[in-house]
């Protein structure tokens, strides 16, 4: 009798969708074919006839792979996205902002207005020094969960991305709602704030994430996934 598990894996792997099907589904399909083949043997068919009968259970492996993927794929992809991106990214952001705001509160700085407009420089610098560790941790977590290079980078950069969105919203509000364009150095102020709120934190996060952003070879990836 053929190695049914290998046969199913090989036939599923011919299509892109089939290659993404979970190993336990392939195992289940292999068991079914094995049972059909054994029933054929018990009914008096030859080994070859029984194998051929079992193979007739599937006319199109591509179509089967598509149907299975449609029924099971959505959940898997969502679960994978949560594990590789959202969990590390949100934990990274929460820790980064908790440390920053906690530091500012401990230093007894008022939290009114844009955080960087007052002079919390020592807290900010200490926070910047800590950011590479947070970026590295998020990228490492994402890589362990099987995240792609882009996903790992996004998870690592998430606090800076949040700052970018917040900064952009504040800027738009200042320009279009408050019409606060009176300052002659508006562009210098914007550039300075962008550097402090977005660019420097992004660079620090990325520096920490860098060792975990290289492409992982397939065997190494399997090792990580099975750890």
């Amino acid at each position, binding site marked *: 009798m053929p190695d049914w598990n290998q046969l199913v894996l090989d036939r599923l792997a011919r299509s892109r969708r089939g290659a993404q099907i979970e190993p336990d*589904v392939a195992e289940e399909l292999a068991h079914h074919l094995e049972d059909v083949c054994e029933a054929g043997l018990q009914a008096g068919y030859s080994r070859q006839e029984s194998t051929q009968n079992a193979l007739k259970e599937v006319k199109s492996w591509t179509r*089967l792979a598509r149907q*299975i993927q449609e029924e099971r794929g959505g959940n898997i992809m969502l679960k994978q996205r949560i594990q590789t991106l959202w969990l590390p990214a949100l934990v990274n952001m929460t820790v980064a902002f908790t440390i920053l705001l906690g530091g500012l509160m401990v230093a007894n700085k008022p939290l009114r207005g844009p955080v960087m407009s007052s002079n919390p420089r020592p807290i900010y610098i200490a926070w910047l020094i800590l950011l590479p560790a947070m970026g590295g941790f998020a990228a490492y977590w994402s890589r362990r969960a099987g995240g792609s290079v882009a996903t790992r980078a996004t998870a690592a950069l998430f606090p800076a991305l949040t700052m970018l969105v917040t900064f952009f919203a504040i800027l738009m509000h200042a320009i279009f709602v408050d019409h606060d364009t009176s300052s002659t150095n508006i562009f210098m102020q914007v550039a300075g704030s962008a550097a402090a709120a977005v660019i420097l934190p992004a660079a620090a996060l990325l520096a920490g994430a860098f060792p975990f952003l290289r492409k992982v070879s397939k065997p190494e990836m399997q090792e990580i996934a099975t750890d």
Partner: protein
Amino acid sequence: MAISKIKRGSAEFAILSVLSEERLYGYQIANRIVERTRGELRFTLASLYPMLYALERRGWVKSAWENSSAGRKRRYYRLTTAGCKELAPMRREWKGFFRAIQRLTGAAHA
């Protein structure tokens, strides 16, 4: 289109019906349906598993890997409470549908 919907509906009904009696794995489900319908309904691997996964996604059946009586590892499916609730009205609808078809075929032969 209508025929394919009827086929899909009858296939779901058949699977839920046999699972309402006991937990079974895929190959057993296919065999049980052939036995019960005297070969009128047959499931191949390609038609059975996508449907089982669809029923599981809807929460009507639940699966778990267990050892069979022969000591082999198999994924067994069992009906959930939600599946039981779906099955009762399904039974009524199918009975009503077949009564209607019988009346139609009876009228055609008369």
